[in-house]
């Protein structure tokens, strides 16, 4: 249970505080409600490029990292399809430095053509390092547009192609800031050895005078229900085939989300889960196997993926994955197995509560979903899932017409 207090500034900034006196540190998390899903289809990768620019100096502070390091702090950020999230930790006595830094880059950035060009290069290298120059690195670049035809989840945070990044102009960067980077579109969460009243006072002092922007109204095209199975085969220079099966599922705030997540846990969370126990350890068909939900805010995917051994035909391997998925839709999960995955969820949740940064991030993320207290309700929501829920959700999820299947294959020798 993470106790917290909340206060909203007059410009719309939501502020959350959790006090933990056992740590000498403080964690500050600033979440901006903008992700790759909000990008123009012809300007993809922009939210992530922008994340890089947020470290290149703001109106009054030329070097973000320098001053943070000066106060003993450390920071990073990430961009997903849904959000852009900035976080830092520092000795709690220097908390105000974090407010100074984070507020100034909400007031305005010091853009320049030179900084933009350097970060375009850095992001291009990131694209090469993480997606192109890694075995299986481009699988999601293939899988997304296969699974999604209309919704912007059809592209990755890095973008559809790197040309979009390389063509970005300074004016577009400026416009992006105006649209998305303002108090009403942000959530500030602080956790650690802090006094809530002091945090609210600091929030008022540093963020209170930032002009309230126009609240961004999201209007994204919904992905229509899939009508038939979609398949794609790609050949790459990899030593082993990999199968990816993506099923449309509900979004994170949907009542069936927890059942969907538990289905993926029954399949692969832990060595005793069905896929590793049967197909890796017993039958030795796969060398690696996994199942997970993407957990997006809009309807996401449940993904099953695995690397079959040499000598196993990729179609036979796929059939075995289907068999396990179908079984969940037909036969009720026994009590102990359901309790087992719920126990694991409980432990994972409790472990995460021992870390101030994780607590700050989660408070902000659940506040975005409507209310930070949802974070404390997660375990109950998982505990409520019944075997009937699992059968029903499995039956609606694991259907051919709901599947996008990618065979990522080893190159045939010429």
């Amino acid at each position: 249970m993470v106790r917290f207090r909340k206060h909203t500034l007059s410009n719309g900034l939501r502020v959350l505080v959790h006090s933990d006196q056992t740590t000498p540190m403080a964690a500050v998390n600033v979440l901006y409600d903008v992700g790759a899903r909000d990008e123009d289809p012809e300007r993809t990768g922009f939210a992530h490029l922008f994340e890089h620019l947020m470290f290149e100096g703001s109106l009054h502070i030329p070097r973000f990292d320098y001053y943070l390091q000066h106060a003993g702090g450390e920071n990073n950020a990430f961009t997903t399809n849904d959000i852009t999230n900035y976080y830092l930790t520092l000795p709690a006595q220097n908390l105000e430095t974090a407010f100074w830094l984070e507020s100034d880059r909400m007031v305005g950035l010091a853009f320049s053509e030179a900084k933009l060009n350097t970060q375009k290069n850095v992001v291009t290298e990131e694209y090469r390092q993480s997606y192109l120059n890694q075995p299986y690195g481009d699988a999601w670049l293939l899988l997304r547009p296969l699974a999604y035809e209309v919704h912007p989840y059809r592209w990755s945070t890095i973008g559809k192609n790197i040309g979009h990044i390389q063509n970005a102009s300074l004016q577009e960067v400026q416009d992006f800031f105006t649209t998305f980077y303002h108090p009403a579109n942000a959530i500030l969460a602080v956790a650690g050895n802090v006094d809530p009243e002091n945090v609210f006072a600091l929030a008022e002092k540093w963020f209170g005078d930032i002009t309230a922007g126009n609240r961004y109204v999201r209007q994204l095209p919904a992905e229509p229900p899939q009508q038939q199975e979609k398949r794609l085969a790609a050949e790459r220079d990899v030593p082993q085939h990999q199968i990816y099966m993506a099923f449309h599922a509900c979004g994170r705030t949907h009542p069936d989300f927890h059942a969907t997540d538990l289905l993926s846990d029954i399949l692969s969370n832990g060595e005793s889960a069905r896929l590793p126990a049967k197909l890796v350890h017993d039958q030795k068909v796969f060398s690696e196997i996994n199942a997970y939900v993407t957990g997006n805010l809009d309807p996401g995917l449940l993904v099953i993926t695995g690397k079959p051994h040499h000598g196993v035909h990729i179609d036979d391997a796929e059939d075995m994955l289907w068999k396990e998925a179908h079984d969940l839709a037909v036969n009720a999960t026994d009590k102990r197995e359901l309790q087992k995955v719920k126990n694991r969820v409980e432990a994972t949740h409790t472990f995460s509560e021992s870390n101030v940064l994780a607590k700050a991030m989660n408070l902000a993320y659940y506040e975005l979903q409507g209310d930070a207290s949802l974070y404390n309700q997660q375990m109950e929501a998982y505990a409520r899932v019944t075997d009937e829920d699992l059968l029903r959700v499995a039956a609606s999820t694991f259907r051919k017409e709901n599947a996008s299947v990618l065979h990522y294959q080893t190159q045939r020798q010429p």
Partner: protein
Amino acid sequence: MTNRKHPPPKQLVTQIPYIKPRAAELDNGLPVYFIEGGTEEFVKVEMVFFAGSYHQTRPLVSYTTTNLLRNGTKNNSREEVNEQLDYYSAHLQLEAQKDIVSVSVYVLNKHLEPALKLFSDIIRLPVFPEEEMRSFLKNQQQIHLINQKKVQHVARTYFNELVYGEQHPYGYRLKPDDFDRVVQADLQQFHRRWFYPGNAFCIVSGRMPYMIEKRIGKYFGDRNWQGAETGEPPRYPMLTSGSRKVHLEMPEALQSAIRIGKQLFNRTHPAFHRLKVTNALLGGYFGSRLMQNVRQDKGYTYGIGSNIVSLLRNGYFFIATQVGSDVSKAALDEIYNDLKELRHKPAGKDELESLKNYLAGSFLRSFDGPFAQSERFKELLVFGLDFGHYDEYMNTLKNITAEDIMECAGLYLNEEEMMEVVAGK
């Protein structure tokens, strides 16, 4: 109006709130340390054995022994072990390193009893079934083959071989057929020889449940648990040759992985703390010279960093990055130039102050909570040090000057003595 031009006042980190562990010794001599702290009702129990790859006589034996601990015990099959671990949501971590093996479990206090029973069996009574071993090694062989397509992996393994030589366990580079050579008896012997109380210690950290010491004693204090054989691990000659460069052509690569560095020493050396600060200035954090130059100024890479690695019998320094293949020559020039400047260009007042404050904050962070504290304490135990070692580091941070750093760079980080590996183009 709020004054945004000037940073708010700040206080330096001068003290680290160590949690001094409570020490105990079980009936069979196993030392156990308790580190109390945290907010949630769970603990970590970690067993450390001096049984790393340094102790093995055949490649992969330490790694395979460690990873197969969970694949069946005298009391339970692999299926039963895994089912119970998962049911009691006991998060098991198996780490085989160069000098030590660490086997740890995170578990909610309410599941502690069954989890400890299982954990004890895993450590003391594994059976290493032949078929499980073959299957594990076959899967690892596949991962090994995939890794050979990753430039950073290839660069790392060749670099270690250059620094320590192909005969030394710190430098040995795995070959695909090593995965076919391990036999069941290797694992049984290795386990008998190195996994016993006289070669181990245990750290328990977190919110201590009722009678924790007695419960640890019940599962790990058995007097009959003794090593079958004793003795020193084999000794290997340490390679000490001058600078060498290896360029590995990987025609498909879009990026080249660069690794530059040299053999040095470990944390017991008198210059270790100074070297740590010197390394940080060069490439140990985002504000470092390498990061600012090669990424932030030139845009050649997504990331670059340097580090010093402390092994029980030695240590080394390295710089690592991945850069666009078209700029790998230019990036190399920048790296060598930054290395050279480390000797000649004193850190400015701001640069040095920022570095010191950052390192002090980072050090404080590395002690945040009982699990982080247990990591730091483990480090001391492995190297036979005490908390004075960390006090010395804080003193070094306080007193080190720009001249000290240049001197340290001159003594230990001369660019002409570096090994260099480039994998890619």
